[in-house]
């Protein structure tokens, strides 16, 4: 199904923020916004839900922590409890302080890397991915708001023109 979108260009993030609020107030659907840098508060103005990536990081950390405990316990206590320099390898807790650095690092390692990979997967980023920006200027100094056309094209264009846009394009998506 092909649908029309209007790409309204802005050259200032403050103007963009005001425009977003106006468009939302007028109940038009914002498809996407392309900005060259993070605009503070844009997600709130667009009404996007908060990210849950911190929660995934916490769970990945728990996995790493458990993995470290299992690994150290299996290798150092169960498999071959050798006396290495008088360290007590009779039980995990007796020798735990020496495992803490590894437990800590593996927790951080799992939390950090798996969270990053989750981020790449959720935001569909990988090498050789085709760039999706509608206009090369959006990576430099232009802000583009894509609004879905649901009714009359002309009235939406004139509405957007009043929001401080510097350029408007109507395209098929």
């Amino acid at each position: 199904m092909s649908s029309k979108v209007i790409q309204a260009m802005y050259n200032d993030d403050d103007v963009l923020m005001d425009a977003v609020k106006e468009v939302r107030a007028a109940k038009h659907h914002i498809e996407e916004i392309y900005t060259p840098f993070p605009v503070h508060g844009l997600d709130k103005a667009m009404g996007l839900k908060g990210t849950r990536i911190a929660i995934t990081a916490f769970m990945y950390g728990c996995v790493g922590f458990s993995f470290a405990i299992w690994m150290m316990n299996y290798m150092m206590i169960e498999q071959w409890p050798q006396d290495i320099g008088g360290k007590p390898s009779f039980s995990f807790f007796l020798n735990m302080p020496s495992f803490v650095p590894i437990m800590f690092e593996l927790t951080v390692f799992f939390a950090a890397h798996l969270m990053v990979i989750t981020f790449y997967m959720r935001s569909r980023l990988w090498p050789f991915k085709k760039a999706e920006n509608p206009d090369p200027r959006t990576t430099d100094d232009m802000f583009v708001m894509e609004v879905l056309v649901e009714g009359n094209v002309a009235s939406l264009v004139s509405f957007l023109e009043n929001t401080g846009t510097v350029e408007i394009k109507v395209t098929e998506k």
Partner: protein
Amino acid sequence: MYTFSSKLKTFSFALMIVGLLGVAYGFLSTPSSVEDVKIMLQESHDAHEDTGVATTHDSDNHAEAHSDDTHAEHAYHYLKNKPWSALYVALFFFFMISLATLAFYAIQHASQAGWPVVLFRVMEAITGYLPVGAVLLFVFFVLSSLHMNHLFIWMDADVVSNDELIQNKAGYLNVPFFLLRAVIYIAGWILYRQYSRKLTLAQDNASDNKNYIKLFKSSAAFLVFFLVSESMMSWDWIMSLDPHWFSTLFGWYVFASMIVSAITTIALVSIYLKGKGYLEFVNNSHLHDLAKFMFGFSIFWTYLWFSQFMLIWYADIPEEVTYFVSRFNEYKIPFLGMVVLNFVFPLLVLMNSDFKRVNWFIVCTGIIILIGHYIDIFVMVMPATVGDQWFIGISEISSVMLVLGLFIYVVFTTLTKAPLLAKGNPFIKESEQFHY
């Protein structure tokens, strides 16, 4: 302006009176002679036998008679020290809160932080206890050096004459130099406290930033002094209780305990005042920042606690490891329990960003953290002074009540002396509009 509510004032007086009675009871109930202790030990021994755990060693009777004497002698000294140590832990605990608040305050000035400006008067009120607490501690040290108690065994000439290790440290650990150092630290801290207070009050009505610039420079200078004096203070006041033991990161470890308790206290006092409607310019982003500091410094404390413990445990050098052996054998519950209170609990509760904005979460965690750090100081001091005779009983609790009452009284009296908003600070607008 803040008015000291009569309820809180009565509460602080009640704490002080009950605490004073309890402390007096603690001092009066110490055994008066070694004979008393022997009877006491015998009674508890008999009581154990009655429960059926009969342990009779007829063959050892002779040897035991001798070791019982030395044991009773030890127990006698420990029990004599108990009310003194309880008082010392309480005095040091509240003193360190106000001292670290002063350090935190100086850091905020030196780093020109925008967000905490609305909290400066709360911090100044908490540091109002610093002169009082410092003088009380100094009086305590003078009493110790007059042999009213045996907390610092290196002050005892008989002990030193039989102890070559302490003799070799006598160049540093001797009473006149100890008291002189204490005077220098205390004077430096009080000087900066009074000077910075004077400057911020003057800045309130000033037309230029002269006072503010002076404050910036003096804060930076104070931080240099503080870092050196705090480290030496921790050797003098805490580490010298175990004069045979030493640790290089001890100063940082004590500092970590201090700063996390201080930030927690700032948060608790701010929440109390906001609840009473005195701090309408403090929003939940300010509290969120304080909670982040509580969280971060709790982990910092754990890092130092573990670093100190693990390095000594791992190398297991006899002269160092005795410190942890005595703590592990006789203080297992407080020693390991405080890690739960000071690390696991804040880690899990304060990790969530939303929870850090909920006042009752901060209050609950804050109280846990303060209890945890009281136990931390307790475990630093008690094994050296009362050994296996420790107990968190009347002496300990009433000492805390006494000093807590005084702390509340001084802090909230200081709050009434100045407007609650440091309006002359150049960052005040940023702070009032701060949001995260």
